[in-house]
Each structure stands twice: as structure tokens, then as C-alpha cells.
């Protein structure tokens, strides 16, 4: 609901994401604050933020694939890995400049992803989940046993460098990852708002009806998988060059399931939902790992984090099944019509 005094004279104006001056100021000040983060936040925190930027990009992908298109995939970590390995091989072995290798590895992951889209045409619900699960295991098996991916030993990936600039220090990496994150969020937002976004939602809600309406369900599902895995690929390649060393154990089935956790807790079918989900989990992880722990409790620390995680997920699912984003919308709605009870 726009504030009073704002009227729209063109459709473009009416569709704008950022609608009023106040929203612009809030957005820009938030961006400046985050870009300046390396100067006032601890080094460790910056590293965590850089890595979570990559995870966020991949979560945007799974949000489009599962949140909007309704195709549940338990293989996001595998495609994330494909992106990582592809970029590492392209840069280190084939000498492709970093900037191309990022998008190339995104495309490679998208190609692999759409290959896994094919079974989704005839499968629904849990059978599809099983297909993607099989995909996850097979990809990780192949990756860890093929010679040119360095097998169980893992693969090196040097620091990203665009032209003369090499991003080797923490803050520089953070800025690179953060700018990619912004670019990808804008891309995701516009895909979701556009024609494809509506096709995704139609297929999610009722693919039979969507088919009758003239939406090529076959092409939409494939495209959904491709887009989802493209984002995963980009995220993966950035993460590869950030960590410098990639190893098959970094892309396990549990990571894929955590991606699902992020979008469910954050809120399905909403781009801001991914942000809520990832930020929420990263903070919880940070708090739990940095707990002041007495000596003899030390050996219990790992199980306790697992139990805590499980409890947190269940509590959120029970009290807020629609996710944090829904809670945020309610909060905004409540204060937009202050002091009235209803519009």
C-alpha cells in the first residue's frame, strides 16, 4: 500500500520494485553500511559473510526452482559443487580468465541441472525428490573418482582476478562476492516478476491446469532446473575461488537438505525469504560454535549443536510454517495502517 500522495502515471512506474523516496534512502544506506562492513567488523565475521554471499546466491536458485516452480530438488549442493569444480578447472587448468569462468561454470551447472530436469517431467512429489537425491549421490561419486577433478585429494583454485585486480585479501573478496550477490538478486527478482515467474507459479500450483492454459510445462520445468542450477553454479565458482581448495566432502547430501531448510524457514516463493533463511542460520551457527564451553563439556559440543539445530527448525516450522518472510510481511502490514485496525 503506497503512502498518500503517490500516484502512478505509467505502468513501468507502477511496477517498480522500489516505490518511494523513503524506500530508496533505506536501500542505499543499507548498501553503504554493508560495503563499509570490513572496516568496522572483525575479520572472522567478514569471512563468514563472504561465504554466506555465495550460499545466498545458490539459495536464490533453489528458491526459484522449489519456491516458485514447485520442483523439489535435494541436489542443490551437488550443482553448487559442479560450479565450483568447473570454475577451478577452467581457471587453473585451462587458464580461462576468472570473469568468464564464473558465468561459464554457471552455464555448465545449468546444463547438468536441466539434464536432471528431464525426469521431473513425468515424476511428481517424492519420486522427483528421489531422482534429485540420486543425482546428488551420483555427481559427488563421479567428482570424487574422476582423474581430472583431482579425485579425493581435491582441486586447487587460485584467487579471483579481473584484469589487473586480484582479490586476495578478505575485504576485497567480500566486496567481489557481495557485488555478485546484488547482481544475482536483481536477476532473480526480475526473472520471478516476469513472464517466466508467472509460468513457474502456474506450474507449481497446478501443472495440469497450466498445461491446458497453454504453458509449455515441459519447457518451464527444464528452464526452472536450468535457472536454479545456474545460480548454484555461480555461487559454487565464487566459493571455490574464495576457499582456494575444493574437496568432494564440501558438497554432501546434508548441505542440499540445508538449502531446503533455508528457503522453508526463510519463506517459500519470496526472494527476501532466502536472505532471512540464510542470515538466520548463519547467525545461529555462529552463536553455537562460539559458545563459552567448559572443558569437559567440550566433547559434547558437536552433538549439542546438532540437537539445537533440529529443535530450532522444528520450533520455527510449528510456530511460523509460512516462514520468517511471512512474519515480516505481517509486521509491515501492521505498521503500514497504523493506528487503524484495518485498511
Amino acid at each position, binding site marked *: 500500500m503506497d503512502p*498518500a*500522495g503517490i*500516484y502512478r502515471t*505509467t505502468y513501468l512506474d*507502477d511496477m517498480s520494485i522500489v516505490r518511494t523516496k523513503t524506500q530508496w534512502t533505506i536501500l542505499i544506506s543499507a548498501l553503504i553500511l554493508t560495503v563499509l562492513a570490513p572496516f568496522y567488523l572483525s575479520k572472522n565475521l567478514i569471512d563468514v559473510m563472504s561465504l554466506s554471499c555465495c550460499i545466498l546466491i545458490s539459495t536464490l536458485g533453489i528458491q526459484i526452482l522449489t519456491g516458485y516452480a514447485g520442483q523439489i530438488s535435494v541436489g542443490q549442493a551437488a550443482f553448487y559443487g559442479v560450479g565450483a569444480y568447473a570454475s577451478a578447472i577452467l581457471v587453473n587448468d585451462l587458464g580461462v580468465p576468472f570473469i568468464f569462468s564464473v558465468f561459464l561454470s554457471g552455464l555448465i551447472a545449468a546444463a547438468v541441472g536441466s539434464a536432471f530436469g528431464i525426469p521431473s517431467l513425468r515424476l511428481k512429489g517424492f519420486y522427483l525428490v528421489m531422482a534429485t537425491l540420486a543425482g546428488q549421490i551420483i555427481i559427488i561419486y563421479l567428482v570424487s573418482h574422476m582423474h581430472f577433478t583431482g579425485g579425493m585429494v581435491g582441486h586447487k583454485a587460485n584467487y579471483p582476478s579481473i584484469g589487473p585486480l586480484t582479490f586476495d585479501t578478505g575485504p576485497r573478496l567480500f566486496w567481489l562476492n557481495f557485488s555478485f550477490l546484488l547482481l544475482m538478486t536483481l536477476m532473480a527478482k526480475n526473472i520471478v516478476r516476469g513472464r517466466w515467474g508467472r509460468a513457474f507459479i502456474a506450474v507449481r500450483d497446478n501443472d495440469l491446469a497450466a498445461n491446458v492454459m497453454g504453458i509449455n510445462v515441459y519447457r518451464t520445468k527444464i528452464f526452472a532446473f536450468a535457472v536454479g542450477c545456474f545460480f548454484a553454479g555461480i555461487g559454487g565458482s565464487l566459493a571455490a575461488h574464495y576457499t582456494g581448495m575444493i574437496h568432494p566432502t564440501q558438497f554432501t547430501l546434508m548441505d542440499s537438505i540445508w538449502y531446503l531448510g533455508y528457503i522453508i524457514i526463510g519463506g517459500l516463493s519470496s526472494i527476501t525469504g532466502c536472505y532471512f533463511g540464510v542470515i538466520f542460520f548463519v547467525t545461529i551457527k555462529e552463536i553455537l560454535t562460539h559458545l563459552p564451553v567448559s572443558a569437559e563439556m567440550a566433547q559434547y559440543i558437536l552433538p549439542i549443536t546438532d540437537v539445537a539445530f533440529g529443535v530450532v527448525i522444528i520450533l520455527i516450522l510449528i510456530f511460523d510454517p509460512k516462514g520468517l518472510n511471512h512474519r515480516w510481511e505481517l509486521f509491515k502490514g501492521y505498521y503500514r*495502517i*497504523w*493506528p*487503524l485496525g*484495518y485498511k
Partner: protein
Amino acid sequence: MVDRTHKEKEGMSIDQLKTGIGDVPGHHGENWRLKTSPQLLVENAVMWRDKPALRKKRYGIWNTYSWQDYLDNVKYFSLGLISLGFKRNEKIVIVGDNDPEWWYCQMGAQSVGGVGVGVFIDCTPPEVKYFVQHSAATFAVAKDQEQCDKLLDIKHEILDVKKVIYWEPKGMRKYTDPWLIDFREVLQLGRQYEKSHPNAFEDMVKTGNVDDISCLAYTSGTTGLPKAAQLSYRTLIAWNYALWKYYPIYLGQDYFSFLCPAWAVDQILGFVGCLEQGLVVNFPESPSTVVEDAREISSVIELAGARMWEERYRNLFTRINDADWLKRTAYRVAMSIGRIYVERRQTNQLNLLCEALYKLADQLAFRSLRDRMGYVRSTVCLVAGAMMSPELFTFFQIVGIPLYTYYGITEAGFITMQQPGDIKRGSCGKVLPGREVKITGKENEVLVKADNAMMFSGYFRNEDATKSALQDGWYHTGDAGYIDHDGHFFFMDRISEMMALADGNKFSPTYIESELRCSQYIADAMVVGQGKDFVAALIQIDLKNVGQWAESKHIAYNTYVDLSQKAPVYELISLELKVINARIPERSRIKAFVNLHKEFDADEAEMTRTRKLRRAPLFEKYGEIIDGIYSEADMITVDTEVKYRDGRKGSVRAQVKAMRI
């Protein structure tokens, strides 16, 4: 939006207005162009070619028409009218909603030298017939199928109307009557006419004179048939000038037109005011979306009847009541601070603490309340028509909406107006410069004297009425009022409706009624007591609010009749009346009341189109109830005849209870 600083140079004096000196085109306050509306339009189209002039909201988007589009449409429409045989000084009747087409038709007719006659859209066919016949209109413009049907019903009685033009073609395909013609066809005729007569339009507009009659504004006719006041361009410009003098207005600011142009307000502001100042006239998408659209535009000036402001207050109040605990307390705290602040400001004992507290209260509730109601950019809001209760007026003052009451009549425009800064509770402000007000006779009738620039040009085809009203320069308004020691004018009531109890004590029913309407549970009321020994009232409960109250008290009810006669509802209303009685002078307090079993409805000639009560027909229609109240009977069976919108008659039998307080 062009942001011009407001220059404090003294504007044109009144006598300059008369003689027409100072024709230099300018903006606020410098000097006013004394021209007919079409001439102003031609000038504006030259000065501000593709700046926005009109906006119409369709499917959520405000389609903008530039001054050039405005001129083209008016030009081709007027040429079309000429080719259809429209001559100078002829009248064109327009009935419809606020649309750009209404502006084009009226301005088109005025460019030919004709006169626009606005008719309310919810008039029944007989009423439309009266307006068309009385104004001897030769052309009629109807908005859509519904209005065309009305005109077709009375076609045989208005034979001198050559053509009926409609601008909403929906559903009109099947109408083959040659009498009807589409607005776009008239434009087409205009284009062909222009080919054969190049710049005929420009010469025609030049011949226009500022003293020509621009439109006929029908008085609301609470007593007898409505009279048509002729308003010339000069008068309209003078009235505009009297209003805009105190407030900074800039080129390109928005004016929201939602009141039916049949009312004089939009003729003053919508047509002449906007042409003079270069304001953009914005039209709502449809009558039902006026509230949201008004909020989007947040018009610079808003002039509405007291009834409109009451409704806004009432539906705002219910929505605050329904809010949860946190919002309600925030609102109550802010209101208490606001009340103290306004009292202090009136007696100007403001101190810093009070200012700071008010700032806090403003952040707490008032800023968002203004945003919800859509008064973010309003420079001035005026309340007109029947009296508005002071209680309500202070509410809007507290919330920070620049609301001022004024007293004005169709025949003499704005007579007195409150100025920011010197506001007295319940007054209509001081007399505006260039006008004189005199109170005469035992009913202290208000007489107004102003030079003819600021007076209407007599009633159309009603010489004797003009004579009886205008005696040696003093216009007899027929309203009662008084001026207190420091020049503030207080409006009491129309003389014809002033009533006197059996013991001669006089009371003003409209004043009591406006106080009654202040309660959220009373939608409308009619006060009776002429020649009786105490004052009584027929109450029309507000279905929404009383319904909500009943639900919260788990009182089952089905229809309006059922709810209004419930005993607890009577208790509720009597409680409300006790509260209101405290604010009314002792002798004219309400002693008994009845909850009417049906709503007042303009269709049954119980109210005028501007929602004022028609007392004569109501007295005779509800005679049994009124006698019942005074005859100590507490149950009155009544069988009122009801007219459906499409003319069918039905009757409603109901048991109505009378109650003493």
C-alpha cells in the same frame, strides 16, 4: 512540479477586478486574467503546451492529458456542437460523473457562448425533466446507458432537446435512436467542420466576454422548486480570488474533483480556479473508488459538505476502535495531548513543552492518520453547507488537517471564511473584504451586500424571485445567524427551518441534527418540535456501526428494521442522546426520540441531492410517528410506502417504539 516561491505582493484589489485592469497572465497572487474560461484555456495551451492539465484514473494508472489535448478536445467538440445547430446563449444540460468528457462538453458549449447546466447523477427522471425544461436546454449530455435511459423516458416531454450525447458507449450498441449520438462522433463532426471553416473556433472564443453567463447553478431547493442562479465568469473569478488570496498555490499542483459539477463548488474550483492557476484536475476511476483515489492524489484544496467530513470521521473512528490495544492507547494519548495543544493555541499560551509534546503526538498518531486519510499535501480544506459540530471541527484541527469553516451561498459565493491563526470555536470566520453583512429582523436574517462583480447575475427566468431576494443591493439569504463582538460570524439555520416550541422558545433543528450526527451510532436525524412543548427527534441509526456494536454484544439481528427496533439499541441511542444533550442549550434538549425503521433516501424525495433534509415532505410522511411521540403512546404501528429505484412501489409495515429520556 514547478516550485515557484510565493511572492507576498498585494494582489488585484476588488475595484480593479471590476474594471478589468491588469490582464498580464501570471500565477498566484500577481494578477488574475479576466477572461472567459475558453479564452483562458486557449492561453494556457499556448503557455504550457504539454504540461499536464487533466488526469483520469483508468485500471490503476492516471492517464494524463496535456493542455494541448484539453484544447483539441474542447475545440472539436464545440465545432461539432455548432455543426449540430448549437447557438450562442443556448443551454446544455450535462448529467454524469466527474470525467474529462464533462469538462470538454461544458467548455465546448461555453466556447460557443452557451451555458452549462449540471444535473446530479442520481436524479430520478422527473427531476431531470424539471431541470431540462426549466433551463430550456437545446442539447443534453448523458454519461452512460443509465442516464440515457432517464432521458429516453422523458423524451416526449423535452422535445426542444435536439441531440443527447453520451460518452460511455458500454451497452449502447443496441440503441438505434438517432436522437442519441456518441461523443467521439461529435468530435469527428468538429474535425470535418474545421476543414470547411478554418479557425472558426478561435474567432468564436475571442467574441466571448468575461460578463457572459458561464453556468446555471441550481440551489438545493429545500423549500419549493430549485431556482437557477446565473453565474458569470467574472463572478467565478472574483470568488476564486477571494479564496486563493490567503494560500500559496503553484503551477502543476493537483486538484481532485469528486463533487458533482452540478454543485457550484466544482464550477468555481474545477473549471475557473484550475484554469487560472494551472492546477491539474484529477478525476477518480469511478464513484465507488473516490476514497482511495483522493488519497493517492492528496489534493491541494478540498471543499466538501459537513456531511462528507462527518462520514470520514465516523468511518475512521470505527477503524480505530477495532484496532488492538497498542494502537488504541497510542491514539488516546495523542488525542489528549492534541486537545490541550489546540486549546492553548487558541488562547495562545503555547509554551515549549506543549510544542514538543505535540510534536511527539504528531509522530505517534497524527502523521500516519493524515497519511491514511490522504491529507499529506493539502494546503486548505473548507467545510461548507449545513453546520458542522464544533466537536468534530476540533478533531480535524488536532489531527493537523488545515480545515476551516466558511459561510457561502450559491448566489453570493464565499461570504465569511475562517483564516488560519484566528479560529473561534463554532464560528464561520470573519467577513471577507469587499463584502458587507447585516443582521435584520427578529429572526436575525443575514443580508449580504457586495458589488455586482461578486454577486450572481439573478435567477434564470425567475425575475420576481430575483427582485424579492435582491432589495436595493442587499441580498436576503434566508439564513439566520449573528456576528459577535470581534467580528466572527456564527451561522444558526435557515429561517424557514427555525422552529419555536409552544412557549415561543426558538431552537435551530439543523444545529441539533449536526450535533446528533456527531455520534458514531447515528447516521442521520430529523428534529421536530414546532409548536409542541418539547423537542423530539426521529433517529436513523448507522447500520454499520450499530451492527458492529450489536455483534460485539451478541445481539442477533437480521435486517435494518429488526436492528433499529431492538430494546438494547434504544438504550444505546438514549445514552448517546444524554451525552449530546449536555452540549445543547437547556431548553432545546431532546426529550423523546424514535428509531426510524428505514433510512432517509433521496429517491423518495426525503432529502435533496446534497443530502439536506426536506422537512415539508418528511413532516407529512411521518406525521403518525410524530403525533405518536407526543401522544405518550410508546408503540406506533406505521405503514410507509417505499419507492424502489426503478419506480415500483412497495409498502413496509413496522412497529416503531417511542422512548422518553
